């Protein structure tokens, strides 16, 4: 089985690293493409032994499982470009936040009658094989196609199938989650430094504390509330600290964060559906390079990029 990545950024690198480390795929069975060869991740991919090309079409041709690992606004351009090369054997896996299966299927169906599409939401810790991934299968993707993806993604962490309407919530929780954790760890380390620890040690200990706590929770039948209680001796240090967290509304801040990320994902999807993403959202150099590959694309106006604009009226979104 060979795997291709359209896009050679953080996600492609993380997944490629994870798959090869897990031994499910040899590097030479992986192809990644991007018009931008200056990306720092490109050299990382090359060093690993992944086949790198500037041609997205080459990636499609040499892959069975095709990951769309580009930012959400770029997806329509990519689909327009590689659509003609998609064959029945291909499993197209989109990792783009907020991009629906139906939007991808609609786009591809102008080229291929029954495209196999799977929508996936993963997160950056796939790079250390502790990713959190969910996927939803599209209209023409079989159970085996889903299982194949699940096998791949399970090699780099936790992976489970969900209904598509939950994916935005997953984005808010585990998609963005590592960022919340990094923020917390930075602050915890600051606390350690304030109380006298050298920075490096503070970071190391903070990270280990979170890692250990997460592991305990995953391996325990107990509720996190119970595990918390187990750490809090009466009148001790921990309960004093927790009181501060509660006073600051720690819990509600986290709830707010997950909610905000989920809502924003939906908003972006809405904007995409209504073709309201501004060109500023897309790097100009990238846009130019993509346009070079696909002369049929056009920028409708200076203020608005018509995402699904093409010569064929049937594919125009309203």
């Amino acid at each position, binding site marked *: 089985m060979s795997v291709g990545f359209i896009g050679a950024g953080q996600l492609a690198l993380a997944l490629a690293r994870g798959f090869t480390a897990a031994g499910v795929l040899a590097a030479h069975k992986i192809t990644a493409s991007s018009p931008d060869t200056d990306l720092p991740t490109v050299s990382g991919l090359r060093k690993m032994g992944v086949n790198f090309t500037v041609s997205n079409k080459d990636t499609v041709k040499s892959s069975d499982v095709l990951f769309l690992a580009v930012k959400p606004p770029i997806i329509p351009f990519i689909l327009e470009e590689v659509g003609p090369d998609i064959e029945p054997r291909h499993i197209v896996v989109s990792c783009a936040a907020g991009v629906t299966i139906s939007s991808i299927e609609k786009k591809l169906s102008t080229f291929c009658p029954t495209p196999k599409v799977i929508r996936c939401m993963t997160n950056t810790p796939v790079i250390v094989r502790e990713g959190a991934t969910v996927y939803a299968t599209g209209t023409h993707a079989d159970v085996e196609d889903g299982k194949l993806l699940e096998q791949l993604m399970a090699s780099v962490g936790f992976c489970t199938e969900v209904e598509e309407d939950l994916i935005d919530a997953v984005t808010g929780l585990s998609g963005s989650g590592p960022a919340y954790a990094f923020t917390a760890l930075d602050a915890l380390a600051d606390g350690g430094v304030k109380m006298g620890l050298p920075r490096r040690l503070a970071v190391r200990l903070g990270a280990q504390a979170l890692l250990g706590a997460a592991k305990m929770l995953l391996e325990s039948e*107990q*509720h*996190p*509330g*119970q595990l918390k*209680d187990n750490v809090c001796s009466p009148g001790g240090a921990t309960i004093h600290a927790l*009181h501060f967290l*509660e*006073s*600051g*509304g720690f*819990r*509600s801040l986290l*709830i*707010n964060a997950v*909610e905000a990320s989920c809502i924003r994902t939906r908003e972006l999807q809405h904007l995409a559906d209504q073709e309201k993403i501004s060109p500023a959202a897309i790097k100009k150099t990238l846009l130019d390079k993509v346009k070079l590959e696909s002369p049929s694309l056009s920028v409708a106006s200076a203020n608005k990029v018509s995402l699904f604009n093409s010569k064929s009226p049937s594919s125009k979104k309203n």
Partner: protein
Amino acid sequence: GKVPASSILASAPSDRNLDTWRESGCRTTHCNLEVLQESTLVFLATKPHILPGVLQEIRPAVGPHHIVVSMAAGVSLQTLQRLLPAGTKVLRLMPNLPCVVQAGAMVFARGSGTGDGEAALLKSLLSSCGLCEEVPESYINIHTGLSGSGVAYVYLFAEALAEGAVKMGMPGGLANRIAAQTLLGAAKMMLETGEHPAKLRGDVCTPGGTTIHALHQLEKGALRATVMNAVEAATNRACDMAKD
């Protein structure tokens, strides 16, 4: 039904409250010493500032067979033992209001002269009024903050729940009764299942449902921290008052 009313003797300087006792079938008197002479188990149920005077008064009548249980807030075992004959079996009890409906929460601590037998007797007797546990004396002030005063926090919460319902269109009387039953039911589940409240809370929260939306509001208002502050404030106040 643990003790027949006729075996209970209560004393007070005036008749003001004694009628209620007599109505239940208890004997009454105006003489504190008489209580010591007629009883083995003696509860001191006066206000704290009166207690030292009462102890002085009854001291001559206190013997090694007596078990003296003080319910005066802020009066330590050390003080009680100092004001009574050496070796007197002394215990300190902190009940809470719902004892009157046999759903109380009580803690007691034993003095140096008190043995397992007396502690067991008291616990067995008081279990008829609710939950009764022996604790180190240092927990008594905490119990005040948690459960002595805690009853008031619950009333406040119940009132707020009912007001929310009234705002949404329910008549007040009905809202009050439902609020009370909700608290009773939730508490009963906690006590009977022994499950962690966090787990019980999660069990009620359907994904994206009404409960989780409401809980988010409570978290935004830092309810947890506020409640912790309340328990802390009451406990600290109990400690301060004890020093006076």
